[in-house]
């Protein structure tokens, strides 16, 4: 009797998980709809293909496990915000690793050298470091506007702010980045 009950329970569980999985087909639709934009944004933030794949995977896994498999109200907003956070976490980890390595080897890149002035890779790396340091509200706007190339209307919907606020945040972010980048070069 007990065995039967257990087997019924497992069948019920299996049926339940199957129905959730069937319902979760919207994840694949979201992947199809926003995948390209998301990959572009992640590539621009991270600049490394393996990191992009990892961040992309993390984003959709978080989406699949959102409140026990429920569909968020605004899927695109959820995806972009999550991807943004995941990418920044990876970026910060890499920056810390790079710092640790450079300290242990005692290699210090000279920011003032004329080679670095024209080295665009250095410039990009510097910008990525500074973006990782930005406060969340400014960072979200700059990544969505300049790296994901979304319109202010889309950004305002994703972040739940007005378009005017998004513009102000972007302006502030650019000012902060300019100050920090100039300081790093001094």
């Amino acid at each position, binding site marked *: 009797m007990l065995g039967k009950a257990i087997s019924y329970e497992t069948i019920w569980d299996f049926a339940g998980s199957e129905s959730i999985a*069937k319902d979760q087909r919207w994840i694949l639709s979201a*992947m199809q709809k926003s*995948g390209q934009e998301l990959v572009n944004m992640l*590539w621009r933030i991270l600049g490394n293909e393996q990191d992009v794949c990892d961040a992309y995977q993390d984003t*959709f896994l978080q989406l699949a496990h959102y409140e026990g498999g429920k569909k968020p109200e605004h899927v695109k907003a959820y995806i972009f915000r999550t991807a943004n956070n995941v990418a920044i976490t990876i970026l910060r980890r890499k920056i810390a690793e790079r710092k640790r390595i450079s300290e242990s080897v005692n290699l210090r890149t000279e920011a003032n050298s004329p080679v670095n002035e024209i080295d665009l890779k250095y410039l990009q790396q*510097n910008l990525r470091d500074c973006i990782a340091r930005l406060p969340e509200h400014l960072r979200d706007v700059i990544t969505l506007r300049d790296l994901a190339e979304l319109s202010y209307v889309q950004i305002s919907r994703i972040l739940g702010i007005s378009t005017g606020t998004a513009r102000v945040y972007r302006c502030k972010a650019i000012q902060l980045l300019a100050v920090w980048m100039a300081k790093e070069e001094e």
Partner: protein
Amino acid sequence: MKILKTISSMSLYSKSEKKNISKCKHVRNRLYSVLEKHLSPDASWMQKHIAGCPRCQKRFNAVNKVNLALSCMKSQPHSLDLLKHANIQTIGVLKHSLREAPKAQKLRKILPEPKLFERMAKYFQPSANLAVCILVLVLMKMSVFSSMSKAQTQGQKAMKQYYTARVGEDIAEDIFPSDIA
């Protein structure tokens, strides 16, 4: 409960107010573009100031450096199959039924599609050429007709002069009335 329903069903704004709000929205959007034009670094008053102020020059350079780095990040291409790889990796960790779904198979093979503007760009050149050809033809046709009518009037004038010299002005005027010539 009923009261709440009636309140929610009631419109907060009248028709004219709604119209005014939509106008406001339009003006607000236009305002940003106008301000951007006037306050952009390309504005002449700003250029003049920056040229003479070392502090602003420094700030301007710093902002330009950020913009340069951002455009560098944007212009750096990734491999064509990055989206495919990312999809394969992600679908691999999803539930079995999702992995086996026909859409998942499609996503595993997906390649980035160019944007609508990029897709239309290849048709832009031939259509521009066609438009130029049509314009040239129209202009040619117009010039041909105008030169033909010019030649006709000049020919009539010459004939009138000939007849005036030979048979007299009255008869020449009868044959070639002056309003035509």
